[in-house]
């Protein structure tokens, strides 16, 4: 299915040279906005907006739970600085246009991605679920529960994870983890999202070096 890209800046989902960018056409009934911007266009089948930590509602406005249009959000999941994964979180609102959803799914699946549909809630699916786990793992390290390598090995051997939480969050960047967790914490207020001390230290060091 054809789609056109409208770039507002560098994209976290599709780094320069990504096939998804190069396979786009100039004009199509589906427009994909990347790099932090969007324009409504009700004449299109679907207007897809790349999201980072913000909600789709920031672009569409909200209407007491009745919001929804042909404008949908998306993010290709990426662990901080790691290369992007194959997963697209496709973000809908309560009254999102079903034809727009079908078209968006067709575009992304046609490009070889797996699609998971998420409500327009802070952290979507993955960050909402994994950030508290990374905070716990970092706290366990501070508390001496086990060595970092053993925490990681336990998750790989015992749970079949591709990598452990400490190695993963450190590879993705503790500052990135801080920023994502802090946004979640501001929204939900529950302690599990409060950025772990090690992430706070990394953030302070990054700020001091700026």
């Amino acid at each position, binding site marked *: 299915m054809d789609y056109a890209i409208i770039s507002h800046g560098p994209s976290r989902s599709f780094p320069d040279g990504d096939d998804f960018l190069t396979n786009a056409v100039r004009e199509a009934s589906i427009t994909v906005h990347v790099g932090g911007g969007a324009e409504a266009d009700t004449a299109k089948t679907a207007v897809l907006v790349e999201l980072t930590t913000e909600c789709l509602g920031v672009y569409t406005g909200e209407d007491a739970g009745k919001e929804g249009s042909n404008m949908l959000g998306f993010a290709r999941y990426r662990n901080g600085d790691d290369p992007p994964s194959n997963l697209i979180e496709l973000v809908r609102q309560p009254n999102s246009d079903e034809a727009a959803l079908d078209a968006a799914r067709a575009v992304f699946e046609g490009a070889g991605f797996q699609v998971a549909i998420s409500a327009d809630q802070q952290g979507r*699916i993955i960050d*909402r679920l994994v950030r*508290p786990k990374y905070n716990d793992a970092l706290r*366990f390290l501070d508390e001496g*529960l086990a060595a970092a390598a*053993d925490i990681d090995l336990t998750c790989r051997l015992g*749970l079949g*994870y591709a990598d452990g*939480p400490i190695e993963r969050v450190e590879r993705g960047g503790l500052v990135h983890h801080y920023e994502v967790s802090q946004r979640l914490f501001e929204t939900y207020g*529950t302690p599990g999202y409060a950025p772990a001390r090690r992430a706070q230290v990394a953030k302070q060091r990054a700020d001091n070096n700026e």
Partner: protein
Amino acid sequence: MTSQIKTVGVCGAAGTMGAGIAIVAARAGFKTICFDTGEDALARARKQTEGFFGKSVERAKMTEADQSAALAKLSATTQIADLADCDLVIEAVFEDLKTKQILLEQLDDVCPSHTLFASNTSTLSITEIASGCARQDKVVGMHFCLPAQLMKLIEMSPGLNTSDESFQAAWDWTVQVGQMPVRTQDKPGFILNALLVPFNNDAIRAVEAGVATAGDIDTAIKQGLGYKMGPLELIDLIGLDTQVRLCEAFYPITHDPRAATPPLLSRMVAAGHLGRKAGRGFYQYDDNAMFGG
């Protein structure tokens, strides 16, 4: 001290974990005494063990000679007194503090003073399990993963009164039987369950909060993070009632709100949606094949 361990006792050896642990010990050449309360259950476990070794031979993971040798190492009893010759006793009885404490007190009377006691508890404190026993220095946490006969990981935890020598001896034994031990403190859920139980609860809360369907959550976690199973598939496999019991074990100790039983979980258990074993949990199952979600 490792070389001094020749005979291993497994308490609760007719259960899911005990039967697997007995396989690990016997397969590595240790004389293994399987102790449980009922003869029928022990006989059933023996049949399952024979079936497991049979499959291992079929898959060329062990020879027929190794199979016969391993089976010859295994004996079963309902008499705790038969554990008198054990150098190491691993308990995998019900996850109940009193049951485990009473068992260790009885073992104290039966076993010689050098015998090490190991607990396979998932959520209880090793120090508390050991507290009624006269040899607290010889009690260690030895948490195998399900299925024990296939999973290499063991979380090893010393209690507050465990001696370094006992811990080392138990550790060395786990290496000798081909397992991979990691050291953790004696804290609720050690590493594995301390991370997993709240994470699984969060996934249930995400379904309840309308973030996504169970299927979309599992897809996202598997594709985005490379996990072999999504959290909701995993909870269906573990059993939703078991997840409630895990929450009930953790929350009163940790007071971590993420460990508290999610309301949706309680409702699903009340409705009989217990997961795979009930044919319905976060997914529906038909002849064990998964559909929907």
